[in-house]
């Protein structure tokens, strides 16, 4: 059985549904497998599997302009790969992107190749002035996702939630 937390993923998925998210773009990675499967099995969710994360910015921007709330699921390396789109579409056009970023590479990480992205992700978010919060425990999930969505819409700007190891991984 995969040590990725099904319970943590379910809480996140339910909170996104409660925030009226109807379209989700995703580039799967280990921590996101349950979330992607939940979206896949939900007949009311439009799931868009991407070739590269930056596409998700355009798709979410189109969904927003068309009146549909969306979320982007990606690893922190995917966030790093999407930055030009986030700046030159999301920020330039004041698009309320809701980005859920798996925060690989923090304490407890066993994959050597994941260890660089974790160290820079929060600094890059700060440099971009993107408001973010961390989801580390089950009690964070519902409230922080709802609040992130509220700020994204009221400020009309991208926001990010970091999906952290203690929530996503049942060690």
């Amino acid at each position, binding site marked *: 059985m995969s040590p990725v937390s099904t319970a943590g993923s379910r809480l996140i998925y339910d909170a996104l549904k409660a925030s009226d998210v109807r*379209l989700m773009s995703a580039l799967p990675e280990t921590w996101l497998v349950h979330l992607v499967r939940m979206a896949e099995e939900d007949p009311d969710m*439009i799931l*868009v599997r991407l*070739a590269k994360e930056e596409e998700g910015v355009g798709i979410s921007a189109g969904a927003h*302009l*068309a009146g549909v709330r969306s979320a982007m699921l990606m690893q922190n390396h995917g966030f790093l790969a999407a930055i030009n789109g986030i700046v030159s579409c999301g920020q330039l056009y004041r698009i309320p992107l809701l980005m859920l970023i798996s925060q690989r590479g923090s304490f407890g990480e066993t994959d050597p190749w994941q260890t660089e992205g974790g160290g820079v992700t929060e600094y890059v978010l700060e440099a971009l002035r993107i408001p973010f919060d961390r989801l580390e425990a089950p009690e964070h999930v519902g409230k922080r996702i709802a609040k992130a969505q509220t700020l994204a819409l009221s400020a009309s700007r991208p926001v990010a939630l970091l999906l952290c190891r203690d929530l996503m991984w049942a060690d």
Partner: protein
Amino acid sequence: MRRLGAIEAIYPELERSVVVTIMGAVAAELQSIGHRPNFFYLQHAMGLASSLGLGIALSRPELPVVVLDGDGSLLMNLGGLTTLARYRPRNLVHVVFDNESLLSVGGFPTATSTGSDLAAIAKAAGVPRTTTVDTLEQFRGAFLAAQSAGDLTTLVAKVEAVGPAGYVTDLSLMENRYQFARHLRERLPKE
């Protein structure tokens, strides 16, 4: 064929569509013919116009969506063609004006000048309808056929590497963005 002439040739058909363009010459030329509230010009984020069109097309399958792309932009998001093909929005016509050049930054040649074939790439990515045209008559005919086909089409139009004198227009990015979103809201099906 000149791109301005090509856009003029399909301009009447754009009235009922939702149109997303790339930055630079395409945006400036469409505005020079006449801006409408159903036109959105993505004035940066090169490559993402087709992704943005896909987001609209999937969110609002009742709307006919037209993306006016370019060779330089599409070459920055070739992977997006596989995503377009995968979800195959029947309501999206993807036009690519291919002038084999990054015209607005000085005309440096792109890889289509050395043989890369964007229609063939789209076809191999799985786009069900693809074609390349060289003349205005062919372009208008292929565009009308794409609009009535009811399936995803990538239509590559070979055009001359000429453009307008300038690219900045008096339509601000934010004005365009909010006007376009309001237009799409007003076209929501009535409950």
